[in-house]
């Protein structure tokens, strides 16, 4: 006779098959829960889900918008995977994004009347430096003072947001902006080139794909990627093998910060074109979901970024056509992460029915 309830037993090795299926299971469960919520709200679930997930991408413009939203998400998520692979809980990507936008955007404001080929590369470089510097603060505190990075990186998000707020209402305010809290627009050569006429998808997508490819190479083909993985699985083994944990922490934070910074700069020099308060609809936090959903794998992250980007677009359409506040997108994002985290149990543990007799 077997017991009624399964008991949870640790797997000796995490299940590769489950690693692949868990994200899919969680997306399906999210859709089911989403339809239940729509029914409770009195909507026809088929129409609501269509409005949310199909109609936003049923035009060329919609698909371009999907890539516009997925670009920063994928770029930040791939950066986060450098940290998460090594069990470093950098949850401050939103701050690193903001600082990247400030540094890179600052260069854009400084040269607002310059049109030159070097301007955009310089801004991208500035964005990477800004993000990396902001990411290095928790790295230094962690390695020098043994300070937990979870809370420091989180606190730095709000500090960065207030610095941006100060700049756009204070010293960087557009002198011709009728006292709106925004900066001067960047010059034409400080903008991300558009990939297609009439669509907003921009050169940031190419940068993102390039950096994802580079990251794939680093993760799977270099000793650094190997060290990241080993010290994530077993810090003791890594220490025994003589890997320098301090260096790993520094690199992981700097790379993640730089990627988030470039993502921030790509936002302000891409679709936005200037600096203002709300440059990011929580991309830095949402990218954490993308990183988890993509299982920290470059290909997985590409797909996950498209799925999560769709929740942003769907929320906008839902607001227009169903009169639901666009924040409903956050419900889907939260749900998918809940299911994912819950189902992760299946990767590292298995359910067995104990024999009673």
């Amino acid at each position, binding site marked *: 006779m077997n017991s009624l309830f399964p008991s949870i037993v640790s797997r000796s090795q995490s299940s590769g098959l489950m690693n692949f299926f868990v994200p899919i299971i969680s997306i399906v469960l999210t859709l089911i829960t989403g339809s239940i919520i729509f029914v409770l709200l009195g909507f026809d679930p088929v129409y609501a889900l269509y409005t949310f997930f199909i109609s936003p991408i049923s035009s060329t413009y919609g698909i371009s918008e999907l890539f516009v939203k997925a670009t920063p998400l994928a770029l930040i998520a791939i950066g986060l995977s450098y940290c998460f692979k090594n069990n470093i809980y950098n949850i401050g990507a939103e701050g690193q994004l903001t600082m990247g936008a400030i540094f890179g955007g600052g260069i854009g404001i400084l040269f607002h009347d310059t049109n030159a080929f070097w301007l955009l590369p310089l801004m991208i470089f500035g964005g990477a430096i800004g993000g990396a510097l902001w990411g290095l603060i928790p790295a230094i505190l962690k390695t020098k003072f043994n300070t937990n990075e979870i809370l420091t990186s989180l*606190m730095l998000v709000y500090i960065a947001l*207030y610095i941006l707020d100060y700049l756009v209402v204070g010293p960087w305010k557009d002198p011709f902006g009728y006292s709106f809290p925004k900066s001067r627009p960047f010059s034409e050569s400080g903008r991300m080139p558009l990939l297609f006429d009439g669509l907003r998808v921009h050169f940031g997508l190419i940068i993102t794909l390039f950096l994802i490819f580079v990251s794939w190479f680093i993760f799977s083909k270099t000793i650094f990627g190997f060290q990241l993985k080993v010290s994530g699985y077993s810090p003791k083994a890594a220490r025994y093998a003589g890997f320098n944990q301090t260096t790993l922490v520094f690199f992981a934070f700097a790379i993640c910060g730089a990627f988030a910074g470039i993502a921030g700069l790509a936002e302000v020099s891409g679709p936005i074109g200037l600096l203002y308060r709300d440059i990011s609809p929580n991309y830095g936090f949402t990218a954490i979901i993308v990183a988890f959903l993509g299982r920290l794998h470059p290909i997985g992250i590409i797909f996950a970024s498209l799925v999560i980007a769709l929740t942003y677009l769907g929320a906008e359409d839902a607001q227009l056509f169903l009169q639901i506040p666009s924040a409903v997108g956050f419900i889907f994002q939260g749900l998918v992460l809940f299911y994912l*985290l819950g189902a992760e149990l299946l990767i590292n543990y298995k359910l067995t029915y104990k024999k009673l007799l």
Partner: protein
Amino acid sequence: MNFDLILGILQIVLIATTPLVFAGIGELVTEKSGVLNLGVEGMMLVGAVSAFIILVITGSYFLAFFVSIISGIIMSGLFAFLVLFLMSNQIATGLALTIFGIGLSSMLGKQYIGTPIDGLSPWFFVIFSFLIVFLVSYFFYKTKAGLILRAVGESHNSAHALGYSVIKIRFLSILFGGSMCALAGSYISICYAPMWQEGMTAGRGWIALALVVFATWKPERVLIGAYIFGGVTILQMNLQALGLRFPGQFFSMAPYIATIIVLVLISSNKLRIKLSAPASLTIPFYKGR
């Protein structure tokens, strides 16, 4: 400065700081049991909106606060189920809870934006916030149950070996945290504002998280920290009202900077961190090991 002005400012500080005390003390109890719940902001928002909706529908303040606290228990129960029974990552689960709560509260409250209500006098809650801090302090340091809770947070394996149910104690601590966060939210939507607005807790949940660290996980210091953070905010608003031109953003970021400094101070010394942060914080408990 005349006396009335000082008294007036003091009143405003008391009223504005109370939600920070509630959310902070709730999160402190959760963290003391060894669980970090980053969902404070989400639970506060859901608490705020559910209290507001119930008040509009029923007109009963009691029911409003009651349902709000239930909502906090449900939200934190969801979190507890994931982190305790499914052993999910606490940090990611907490963030999911906040993201989910922001979405849920906006959707539920959509038709209530701008609905007028009669606000409730905050003074009962102001006094209650002081009381709860002292009760929690008494519970931690004078009762056996409090000692057990702290033991679970310090070393769940030892507590388990002694025969205490780690999961049960953590579950209850998380639920307490959730109900306090919901109370903080409902105080904001019913006493402090009084109204409903999307995202109306305005980052207080994050400040509450900072507050627990700033207080180095000591109940009375949550009170002190809350009044420093709250006082700075009110001071900034008053100075700006007096026409002083200075960037208020630097005041607003002060709590976050202070928290980082405290974190560095307590963690740079091995002995001091032992005295402060619960040793099992964020580490999941798995019986089979």
